């Protein structure tokens, strides 16, 4: 039993990790917490739902459509809501992000109503048995897809020119501009990637827990935020490891402690991280050298 609890914890954690990557990249590069990020998952879920269930499209149409749509949503949110606040106080940006989050939730409420809809899994892989444990196909796909995405993302950031620009902007925006890097474009690209990942996370999550409602993105968004903080906000490996750890802890505490308490336990991790090591596992404190 333990193995299957553990595996489904890893797969839940992989979803958190995909969401946490968006949080952490946007934080690292735009220096803001995009609290609307969780709701992009919900948007992704609804788009996939509409394309596959309502319009009867194939799984691939739903998946690609959802990723493209969310990428655009991310770019538009950044342009409309955050870009005008580039030199505003951090608090103003944070409040705006919360406003965007409410806006997306209420827009979904308006379009789809308050009832949750049944989502049909877009993954058609049968249950797999490992020894005595049985593992749903969704779990395997989620873990596999997440690993591939993380490898791809690391390659993109460390090998491509746009990736180098992202690293430069995240370290010193002014110096990056002096290199000829278009900072606005780089921030826009970051939002695009983060939102695309959120769409994938949304599809994977709705395939495993087949319900979608206007508030579907809220809790996973917060958990992923905790994962990002736990791993060290701004750090990509931190977001991945943080996500997986939070997922495992949540699932194991559901199984062995109490399913009602599992959320509380996750939040205790946030509090402990902030008290004991606010920079998280991989957070860096930069030393200035003159």
């Amino acid at each position, binding site marked *: 039993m333990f193995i299957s609890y553990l595996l489904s914890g890893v797969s839940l954690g992989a979803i958190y990790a995909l969401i946490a990557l968006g949080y952490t990249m946007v934080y690292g590069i735009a220096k803001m917490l995009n609290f609307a990020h969780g709701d992009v998952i919900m948007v992704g879920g609804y788009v996939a739902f509409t394309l596959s269930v309502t319009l009867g499209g194939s799984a691939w149409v739903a998946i690609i459509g959802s990723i493209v749509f969310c990428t655009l949503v991310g770019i538009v949110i950044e342009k409309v809501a955050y870009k005008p606040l580039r030199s505003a106080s951090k608090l103003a940006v944070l409040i705006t992000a919360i406003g965007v989050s409410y806006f997306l939730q209420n827009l979904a409420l308006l379009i789809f109503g308050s009832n949750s809809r049944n989502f049909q899994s877009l993954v058609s892989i049968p249950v797999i048995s490992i020894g005595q444990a049985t593992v749903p196909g969704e779990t395997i796909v989620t873990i596999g897809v997440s690993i591939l995405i993380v490898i791809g993302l690391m390659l993109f950031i460390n090998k491509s020119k746009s990736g180098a620009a992202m*690293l430069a902007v995240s370290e010193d925006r*002014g110096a990056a501009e*002096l290199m*000829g890097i278009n900072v606005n474009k780089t921030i826009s690209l970051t939002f695009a990637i983060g939102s695309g990942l959120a769409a994938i996370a949304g599809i994977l999550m709705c395939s495993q827990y087949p319900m979608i409602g206007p508030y579907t993105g809220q809790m996973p968004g917060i958990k992923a935020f905790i994962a990002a903080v736990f791993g060290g906000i701004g750090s990509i490996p931190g977001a991945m490891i943080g996500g997986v750890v939070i997922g495992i802890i949540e699932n194991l505490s559901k199984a062995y402690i109490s399913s009602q308490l599992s959320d509380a336990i996750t939040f205790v991790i946030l509090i402990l991280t902030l008290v004991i090591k606010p920079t998280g596992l991989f957070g860096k404190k930069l030393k200035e050298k003159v």
Partner: protein
Amino acid sequence: MALLEIKDMEVSYGFIRAIKGISFKVEKGEIIALIGANGAGKTTTLHALSGLIPLDAGSITFNEQDLTKIPAHERVAMGMAQVPEGRRVFQQLTVQKNLMLGAYSRKDQSGIAENLDEVFTRFPRLKERRNQIAGTLSGGEQQMLAMGRALMSKPDIMLLDEPSMGLSPILVSEIFDIIKHINESGTTVLLVEQNAKKALSIANRAYVLETGNIILSGKAEDLMNDDSVRKAYLGES
């Protein structure tokens, strides 16, 4: 036509009017020094030239183009590179990555590779440490990296902000020699320095900036012999 011409430039930093209407010119091939005390507006001037802060009034003309409305990142491709105050190398990236970021606005791969070789010849220490993280370099090495990084954009003009800051006298001399060599191989230099003596020793002409105004200008050697300059900036009585 001068390579770089600034006319009646006014710049504010927050609520403070830091530059109160200055005009100056840099001709192709020159080394121009902009000297002045702390807070005179030297760094603000360079930030305005690179486009990091907007002008309140006046104009900047570079290579016969009006820069006033051109965003900072496009000015690099036009031939303007800055070595900022405090070097500001990317501490977490390797030496080589820092240098490649200097060539960000270029697309000619073979030209970039050639340029990288040139930079490594000019700064052998950077070649030895090409795979080292820039944050682990010494202050002098970071200054060299910042200069190499600026050279990677193949600039027509290089703006240098306080290259001597925090370096030992021997290193300062070394850095100034390098600046001279860079100029001799065809790059125009605009140098901002508190170390007026050193700056005047390599410059062709200089401007003296005081609380946002240019109060004096002329040939470097004339300024070096000017009584008021000697008293105020060269530490002589």
